């Protein structure tokens, strides 16, 4: 059986600052893979690269045996004096990634502040329909009943939790074959955290493969098959679910490593 997603030697960042380096990652069919690591070490940047928002500097991203990144290294700085990009090919196309079914639910996205929930939900399934996948709005609404009450609100008037629900709902309407959830419970009250954590569990039970980034080890333990510890721009450890230590131990190890 071949892997769903295979990332080989991926490096990238925000020109000219490199954020992550030589990342290798495999997500098998039906798997849920977790990421855990300190803030600001490049998890979000890595995910943005997977979804094509920023171009990788080197490496390959293979999704369902389709190469998502155009081959080759980042353009050498030869073109530094030519400020005209018309012939420079992008290495990644986010539309192609989303069409392929790799759907990224961004961290703390504000979505479209001046559009109503109904309007946003109306355009979200477009990519799935274009790719011949069938969205199921009813399932999404039963997962997030609260959105049904806020259909006519502009998204800038939503609370943080509601906005996160809307983000995830949009992701689900795109009918993901692999869903990236970047800190879906960040900055929410315990009650809302639980609500969203339940939603993630429900998505998982429905069989959707997930890459889940979170700061809550217990939440991750309850969901993931593998956990990648990500710090200083690379995966420093790969743990199976059984190997996941408790929060204190893991933090101590990370903290220790940094000082050593």
């Amino acid at each position: 059986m071949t892997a769903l997603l295979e990332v080989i030697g991926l490096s990238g960042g925000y020109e000219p600052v490199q954020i992550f380096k030589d990342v290798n990652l495999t997500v098998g069919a039906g798997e849920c893979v977790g990421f855990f690591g300190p803030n600001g070490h490049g998890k979000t940047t890595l995910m943005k690269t997977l979804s094509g928002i920023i171009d990788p500097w080197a490496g390959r991203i293979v999704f369902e045996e389709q190469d998502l990144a155009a081959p080759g290294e980042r353009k050498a700085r030869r073109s530094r004096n030519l400020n005209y990009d018309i012939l420079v090919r992008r290495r990644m196309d986010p539309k192609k990634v989303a069409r392929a079914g790799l759907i990224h639910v961004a961290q703390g996205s504000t979505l479209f502040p001046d559009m109503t929930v109904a309007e946003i939900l109306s355009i979200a399934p477009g990519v799935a329909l274009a790719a011949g996948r069938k969205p199921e709005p009813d399932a999404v609404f039963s997962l997030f009943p609260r959105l049904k009450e806020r259909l006519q609100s502009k998204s800038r008037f939503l609370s943080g939790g509601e906005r996160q629900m809307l983000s995830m709902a949009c992701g689900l309407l795109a009918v993901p074959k692999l869903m990236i959830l970047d800190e879906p419970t960040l900055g929410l009250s315990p009650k809302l955290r639980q609500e969203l954590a339940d939603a993630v569990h429900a998505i998982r039970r429905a069989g959707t493969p997930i890459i889940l980034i979170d700061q809550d080890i217990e939440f991750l333990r309850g969901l993931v098959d593998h956990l990648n510890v990500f710090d200083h721009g690379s995966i420093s450890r790969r743990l199976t679910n059984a190997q996941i230590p408790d929060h204190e131990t893991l933090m101590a190890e990370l903290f220790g490593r940094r000082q050593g």
Partner: protein
Amino acid sequence: MELSAFIAVLTGGLVLGVLYSLMAFGLALVWTTLGIFNFAHGAFIVLGAYIAWQIGNPDAFGLGFLVSAVVTVIAMFVIGVIFQFLLVKPFERKPNIVLLTVITTLAGATVLINLINVMWGPRSKQIVLPASGDLSLGLFRITANEGLMVLIVTLTLATLGWFLLKTPLGRSMRAVAQNREAAQLMGLNVPLLYAATFGLAAALAGLAGVFIGSIRFMTPNMGDDPLQKALVVVILGGVARFTSPIYAAFLVGIIEAFSTYAVGLYWTPAVLFVLMIAVLVVKPEGLFGRRERSV
């Protein structure tokens, strides 16, 4: 000021407002969506006027007003798309895109104006509108041609509003304008939507040109004044919602009409610019704008 004079000035202001909303709408659309200021907007207006003259006028192809307006709108859409592809898109990933595109759109405008000079010459022309006579409603009195313009512009903007609010493509265009990254993650075709937005803005500029070319005598350099007016309107109104430039356009039209009556044509631009500077000082996001989104 007598009531009849007041009404006449107000009517003039409202008619100007209609024209200005058409001129400013496209500029604001590009500004919010692509995050750049298109200095070629004035040149688009001029080019639209000349294309319409060429197609419609009895001295040229003579196909009549309606055909000329339709051809102009389509041609300007295509020209806008090409313009964006050559002069805006290549700088999309540069951090200093705003400054770069100030230069490239100014350069593009210069090229367009000179092309117009070469093709049609500097002598002034005028577009002949089909209607004649006056329309009146109580004390409000406008020429039939002004009425035609009000009708066409209102229909155009209403259609555009419907398009942006109700159709998937229009909603996608608003989505890209409000959050490019989220739109990309949704799998929207951002390059296509950028091109369509720029084309649409150019098409609206072209339509504005058709009317300006009928109100005034056309010369290749007539684009500066509309560009200035559109700039004032966009800054005054802000760009948070696509309706803000429309309100601001009417405000500017009415202020211009009354200021022309009170202090004369000569001082009116000064009045408008003082107003614009005052707004920039006090409420930089525009009278109808919100603080979050300012480019």
